């Protein structure tokens, strides 16, 4: 199972199907929160996730696809585009150096 320490995360990928809607919305709110930890937040279609990506956030319905495209990445699924506990989980791990695992 891929896992990563939040303190080592410098980049988080937000993926959705087309990369033009929901991932943009999630990325813009999350990048505001993570900017102070020097973590870049980018959005893209799930099919374009680079294989060496450490952490991917995506809707639960796309998690299996994300896993097949970036098997080495920690995949953090969410259900809601705003206010999902997954976003706080990632932020807290980055802030306090906790472990994130798929």
């Amino acid at each position, binding site marked *: 199972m891929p896992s990563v320490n939040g303190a080592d995360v410098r980049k988080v990928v937000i993926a959705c*199907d*087309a*990369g*033009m809607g929901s991932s*943009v*919305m999630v990325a*813009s*709110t999350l990048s505001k929160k993570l900017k102070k930890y020097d973590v870049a937040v980018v959005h893209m*279609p799930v099919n374009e996730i680079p294989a060496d990506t450490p952490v991917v956030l995506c809707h639960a319905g*796309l998690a299996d696809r994300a896993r097949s495209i970036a098997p080495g990445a920690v995949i953090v699924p969410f259900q809601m585009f705003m206010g999902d506990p997954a976003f706080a989980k990632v932020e807290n791990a980055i802030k306090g150096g906790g472990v994130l695992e798929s």
Partner: protein
Amino acid sequence: MGSLSPDTQQVLGADAVRLGLAATDRLDALRQCGAVLVEVGAATEAYAEAILEREESVSTYMGEGVAIPHGTDASREHIKRAALAVLQFPDGVDWGGHQVQLCIAIASRSDEHISLLQSLAMVLTDKQRAARLRETNDIDEVLTLLAPQAEEDDD
């Protein structure tokens, strides 16, 4: 008119902001979204169809009564130019258990629409401004609310 820069105006024109609409259900609302994108020359009928398909897989409901319908990854070839359309349904539309009063329909192959969606994300974190977006009957107010702001370092 409005307060959008010329670049942003190309993506969200006043002619693509439709307030005070009614829809019988989600499917009807999605069809209206696709029709506006086709009407303003942003996409073809095939893209409008893909909006229905995309919604089937994962809902585009974002919160605060707002959904952002758009096509699938594969349907991007049917986009002619980047555009957003704003469709307001004051009486609400049932969206898989959520009430949606505003749809922001998206057609884009690259990043031209990003700054508008970023400002939408900010509006949705502010309950009062989100309510204005759902309730206003002034097209200019919609354009002002969605106008991209300069980068600010808050919190």
